[in-house]
């Protein structure tokens, strides 16, 4: 068989597609570091995002589950311990009372599996009482990204999208089952205010707060106790530093307060009230010695509850994290409204992935049998199946390079694209194996087939293009994979297939 340049081109594109997808990562184990708290001992020791942790203190960490088990069994008390962490970039040793890392599964390939395959949550968000411009949504995206990173949510994609009517939205996708956190973080604007009486002393964000403690001596769960027979509570505390202006404000406000001796201690008459979204979170007594003094360091405290001590501990940790996030990033510029929220359980995602493999095998099988019955040639069937497979592979590779999340709709697009691909190949086969048209050269006949194929190609493109914008682009994946599939077909696989058929015909 003569290998023409079109067949070479197909082979090269297929090799590049495999390189783009990188399926050999399937055998990797460990957990991927998504982000490291800047003020943490882990960061100081040299751990950075993108590294893969393979063991901690000699215990192998093969996956997320093993990492979480390690974290939940080793950090139940607040005492710091030595951690010897092995990564793909070497060993790091540090003292910590928690890992201060956000980790995720090590990706099994470069394919970006969307929610339908991996499970997770997706929200489409608008400002509650305002119509936002594209620039305003872009600002919102960067503030929200900062907030989500600070909170420690991993595998998150936030972008601005707009629809046909010119409405702008923010689209957030989080892998894993974190719908509750997603909702909490979006629906609370996160307006933090510390007040003494009616006077605001400081607010969340880096204008008033220069440092928020997250680990070591500056933050942690300090005590856990049983409240009643079925309830436990844990107390968290962390330190923040105020800017000079904010601390001066505190000094000015407290200078007019009198000392209250009746409460048993020496405190000022009014406490420092902490509000989140106008709800009172905590009231901190102010020691009498702080009256009129510009203090830059303040300790914030709160608590978490649960049916077991472990639940209470987790709840306290989550509350602390949320408060730290709000203090670091300040409030969102708008009150947000979730206009669409989808969550997909990881179990359903797994089932879907498994079924897709069965589906692909079944479709390949049925089409092979049909072609074998019709053309009675193994080589023809082989060429069609190879072309179908190539189109699917190239589509996946291009989608990977375009960072397109593969959701159910985009996979439907790939299958639909394969369906049209087979149709085109049948047109080529029908022209090539036409026994009556012998006076017309095969090249001529394939040219005629390509006219039909080009017509079909342009109608599909015409049909799919409006989907890029309609419905805030929620079905863009479907349009994109279909267009990639048919374009790869026209430019690469179909010409190669036509050459293969010419060769087979010549044999």
């Amino acid at each position, binding site marked *: 068989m003569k290998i023409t340049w079109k067949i070479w081109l197909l082979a090269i594109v297929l090799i590049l597609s495999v390189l783009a997808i990188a399926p050999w990562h399937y055998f990797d184990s460990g957990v991927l570091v998504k982000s490291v708290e800047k003020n943490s001992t882990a960061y100081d020791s040299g751990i950075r995002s993108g590294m893969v942790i393979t063991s901690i203190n000699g215990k192998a960490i093969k996956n997320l589950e093993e990492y979480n088990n390690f974290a939940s069994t080793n950090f139940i008390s607040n005492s710091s311990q030595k951690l010897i962490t092995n990564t793909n970039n070497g060993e790091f040793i540090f003292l910590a009372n928690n890992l201060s890392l956000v980790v995720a599964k090590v990706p099994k390939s470069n394919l970006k599996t969307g929610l339908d395959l991996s499970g997770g949550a997706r929200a489409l968000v608008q400002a509650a009482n305002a119509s936002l411009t594209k620039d305003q949504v872009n600002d919102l995206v960067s503030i929200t990204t900062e907030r989500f990173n600070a909170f420690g949510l991993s595998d998150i994609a936030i972008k601005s999208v707009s629809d046909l009517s010119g409405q702008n939205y923010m689209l957030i996708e989080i892998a894993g089952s974190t719908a*509750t956190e997603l909702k909490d973080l979006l629906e609370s604007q996160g307006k933090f205010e510390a007040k003494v009486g009616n006077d605001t002393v400081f607010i969340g964000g880096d204008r008033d707060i220069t440092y928020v403690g997250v680990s070591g001596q500056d933050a942690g769960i300090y005590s856990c106790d049983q409240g009643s027979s079925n309830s436990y509570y844990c107390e968290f505390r962390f330190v923040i530093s105020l800017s000079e202006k904010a601390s001066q404000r505190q000094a000015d406000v407290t200078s007019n307060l009198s000392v209250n001796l009746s409460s048993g201690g020496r405190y000022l008459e009014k406490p420092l009230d902490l509000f989140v979204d106008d709800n009172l979170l905590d009231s901190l007594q102010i020691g009498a010695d702080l009256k009129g003094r510009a203090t830059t360091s303040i300790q914030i405290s709160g608590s978490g509850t649960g049916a077991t001590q472990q639940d209470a501990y987790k709840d306290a940790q989550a509350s602390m994290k949320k408060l730290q996030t709000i203090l670091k990033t300040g409030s969102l510029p708008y009150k947000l409204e979730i206009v669409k929220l989808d969550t997909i359980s990881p179990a359903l995602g797994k089932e879907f992935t498994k079924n897709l493999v069965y589906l692909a095998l079944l479709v390949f099988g049925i089409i092979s049998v049909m072609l074998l019955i019709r053309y009675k040639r193994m080589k023809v069937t082989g060429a069609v199946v190879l072309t179908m497979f190539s189109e699917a592979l190239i589509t996946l590779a291009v989608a990977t390079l375009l960072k397109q999340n593969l959701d159910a709709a985009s996979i439907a697009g790939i299958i639909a694209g394969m*369906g049209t691909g087979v149709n085109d190949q049948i047109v080529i086969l029908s022209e090539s194996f036409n026994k009556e048209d012998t006076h017309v050269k095969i090249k001529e006949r394939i040219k005629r087939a390509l006219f039909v194929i080009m017509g079909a190609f342009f109608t599909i493109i015409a049909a799919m293009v409006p989907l890029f914008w309609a419905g805030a682009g929620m079905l863009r994946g479907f349009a994109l994979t279909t267009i990639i599939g048919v374009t790869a077909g026209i430019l690469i696989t179909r010409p190669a297939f036509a050459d293969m058929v010419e060769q087979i015909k010549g044999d």
Partner: protein
Amino acid sequence: MFKEERFSGWYDKNYKILLIIPVIIVLASLIYIGVFYAQNGDIMYKDVSLKGGTSMTIDGNVDTTSLEKNLPSYFSDVSFRKLTDVTTGNKVALIIEASAKPEELKAKISELGVNLTDENSSTEFTGPSLSAGFYKQLMIALVISFVLMSCVIFLLFKSFIPSIAVIFAAFSDILIPLVILDMFGVTISSAGIAAFLMLIGYSVDTDILLTTRALKKVEGTLNHRIFGAFSTGMMMTGTALAAVLPAFLIISGLPDSFRQIFLILSLGLFVDIFSTWLTNASIIKWYCIKHNIK
């Protein structure tokens, strides 16, 4: 194999009558859609992604008796669908839909004794204003797609009647599946409308094949060319159905939106057999005879 010559004679006599059948079906479908619109205020039953509300999928074989009995008293429009594994017959999931917020529906389901977690359930919530906007835009997209497809067809064939024949076939491929879905009370999702768009592109390739072969080929008689195109076209539709039908029929556990795309594509491809080989073939034969393209 059918006797081409004998069939050719029959076809020459009856092709205009064959054209009447699809025209009657299309007219009846238009009347049905008109009546449907008058009764329901819309041309289709919309699911929560297009009318607003929550769709909740609970994985596994959940005992639903209590839910089915009690939920309607809290949510008047609640509906239930069970997904079963075709190979084993086991129930794999339950889908509950209602015009309510996820937390309201979740709270009531939990009250009725079904424990919901992020692990065992999936939700799809669309706010009412957004869904109305989505629906409007997807319908606009459908119209734009159809117009763009029509432009491509006109550019391709550069003559009025053959182009209109292809466009009419594409119109039938959308209209008739929609009527079938309405008749069976199937609620259509946003992904379903995307499938209708896809159908616009998907179904016309056999029409392009037929028109090209009938108009542009010089060898063989007109009937011979139409029959040749039919043989190739049926193989195309057959393999296309083989690609999309299993995704709807055999595989369970797929997201509902995914299955609906394939249900609509399968219906459209099936209808396309008739719209191409009865409607379009008859029009193109008539046109060729009139213009002496033999």
